[in-house]
């Protein structure tokens, strides 16, 4: 590496090979990213905690392993930003909530442990909507993250911190979690790549649960290949998570390198587009469909008649599971406790005071919604019906995958909107995830990758690819093919068009 190379601009794959070849040390790479964070994160606010000391120590360990002739793993020495919903031993983990302020978990999530084992250098914890509830990071108790493309706009959510960290070149890789679109929608609005793997492909042990039947951690990156490399590090069976799939991880890296859609049947989902989608989003999507056809794909239109009900089903299932999962924040075992000294309160009163002080408005809304949906007299009409819709969505996917190998749609109906625009209008905020939610309900994998800038506002547009369960490799094959063709057309990666910070 020459002295003039900006180490923060390299892909993860390039960084790993430079470290492995001894062209640069992992410590230099870590230091360059810590410098970048120091220079720009006061404006972006992607990080809630930066662990400079731990990152440098991890990087030095990689360098020492290399010097002693050890075989390095494919991502050794590559820096990463970890969403603050995954535990890392001894490092503050808040989930974007006051109720966990200052909590230092005594254990590593399985994802965290796998990253450490692979020599990945964890730079810090990224900002998010409280307990992953939101599409803008504005529901973080610690202030919003700003989109590097336009600091007055949202970076998506809930994983806006992870996406913004990558787009701002603060890290080449990040971990996100996706319950209804929290990896894919931030990727779309920041011009980055994000993948929600098949449900159960990545362990949820140590992932603080929002909705246990929907949550899935996955990779965020600037290229499809980088996402694949990270996917293969974090995926795989984990006996500590009883919902973890005991099946081999598909060859996602091989698929990203193959990048060939000739003869691939690509289904455009009729219900995920058209009315309600911004003109520039539709335009870039139609162009991408034409490009895929030029590359030899067989494009067909498929219909998923129950998708219009997915959002409603999701906003019953998620709050129901969330109201149950968040009951553990009781002011006893970890986190905040307030109101103990006011009179002689009972444990229940302290609990209620603590939860009122600790939860923000969106968490409060969803806990109450779930409490309502699960109450006697309403259970069948709300939660029961939502579970039936979930079956109908799965059937729609099964029928669609008989006609197509992968399905595509715009990732989000609009480009990044202004901070504050939808903050107190929950339904308007929920609509951001209208295209990403069906995949979570069915447990299938989905990817978002950038396909250009909307002409009307110059902001990134994302395309979503979906595949059948455990066929995650198809996302990477199709995504890499489209990415390569777009790169040829543009002549440079899309992030080069983002304004300098």
């Amino acid at each position, binding site marked *: 590496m020459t002295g003039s190379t900006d180490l923060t601009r390299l892909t993860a794959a390039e960084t790993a090979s430079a470290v492995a070849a001894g062209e640069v040390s992992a410590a230099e790479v870590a230091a360059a990213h810590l410098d970048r964070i120091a220079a720009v994160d006061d404006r972006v606010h992607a990080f809630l905690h930066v662990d400079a000391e731990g990152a440098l120590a991890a990087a030095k360990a990689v360098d020492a392993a290399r010097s002693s002739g050890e075989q390095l793993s494919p991502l050794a020495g590559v820096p990463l930003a970890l969403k603050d919903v995954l535990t890392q031993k001894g490092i503050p983990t808040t989930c974007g909530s006051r109720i966990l302020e200052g909590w*230092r978990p*005594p*254990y590593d999530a399985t994802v965290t442990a796998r990253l450490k084992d692979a020599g990945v250098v964890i730079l810090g914890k990224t900002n998010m909507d409280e307990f992953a509830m939101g599409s803008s990071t504005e529901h973080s108790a610690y202030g919003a993250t700003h989109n590097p493309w336009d600091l007055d706009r949202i970076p998506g959510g809930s994983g806006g911190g992870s996406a913004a960290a990558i787009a701002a070149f603060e890290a080449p890789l990040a971990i996100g979690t996706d319950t209804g679109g929290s990896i894919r929608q931030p990727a779309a609005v920041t011009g980055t790549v994000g993948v929600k793997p098949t*449900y*159960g492909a990545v362990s949820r042990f140590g992932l603080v649960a929002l909705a246990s*039947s929907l949550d899935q951690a996955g990779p965020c990156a600037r290229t499809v290949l980088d996402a694949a490399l990270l996917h293969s590090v974090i995926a795989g069976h984990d*006996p500590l998570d*009883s*919902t973890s*799939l005991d099946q081999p991880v598909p060859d996602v890296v091989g698929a990203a390198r193959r990048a060939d859609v000739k003869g691939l049947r690509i289904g455009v989902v009729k219900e995920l587009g058209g009315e309600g989608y911004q003109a520039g989003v539709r335009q870039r999507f139609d162009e991408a469909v034409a490009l895929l056809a030029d590359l030899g794909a067989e494009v067909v239109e498929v219909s998923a008649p129950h998708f219009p*009900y997915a959002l*409603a*089903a999701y*906003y*019953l299932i998620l709050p129901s599971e969330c109201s149950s999962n968040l009951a553990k924040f*009781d*002011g*006893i*075992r*970890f*986190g*905040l*406790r307030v*109101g*103990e000294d006011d009179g*002689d309160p*009972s*444990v*229940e*009163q302290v*609990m*209620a*005071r603590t*939860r*009122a002080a600790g*939860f923000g408005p969106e968490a*409060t*809304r969803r*806990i*109450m*919604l779930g*409490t309502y949906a699960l*109450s006697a007299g*309403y259970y069948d*009409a*709300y939660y*029961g*019906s*939502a579970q*039936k*819709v*979930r*079956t*109908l969505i*799965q059937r729609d996917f099964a029928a669609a995958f008989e006609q197509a190998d992968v399905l595509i749609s715009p990732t989000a109906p609009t480009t990044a909107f202004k901070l504050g625009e939808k903050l107190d209008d*929950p*339904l308007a905020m*929920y609509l951001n995830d209208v295209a990403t939610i069906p995949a*979570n309900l069915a447990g299938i994998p989905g990817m978002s990758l950038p396909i250009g800038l909307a002409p009307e506002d110059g902001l990134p547009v994302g395309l979503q690819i979906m595949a059948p*369960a455990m066929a995650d490799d198809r996302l990477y094959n199709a995504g890499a093919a489209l990415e390569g063709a777009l790169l040829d057309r543009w002549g440079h990666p899309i992030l080069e068009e983002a304004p300098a910070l």
Partner: protein
Amino acid sequence: MPDTPSITREDVAHLARLARIDLPPESLDHYAEQLGVILGSVAQVAEVAAEDVPATSHPMPLVNVFREDVVRPCLTNEEALSGAPSVESERFRVPRILDEE
């Protein structure tokens, strides 16, 4: 299916009690309005949830998931208590657990 529910401030107060969240009284009307709008929208699931459609609770139908019954390291007492707001004699310290009545 109930009609589109209208949520009153008393309903919100009741839900907040069930959810153990001590909401300030001045926030009840705002939450009532928002919850009403959301519930009105999500109620549409009943339109397609026919009697003969089975319910799905989990995306992957896994049953009888077991792992090897082996001893593995677990948290120490100290680690388990490390995040607690109040600790006494190696235990979680809690406020009084009985109500006055």
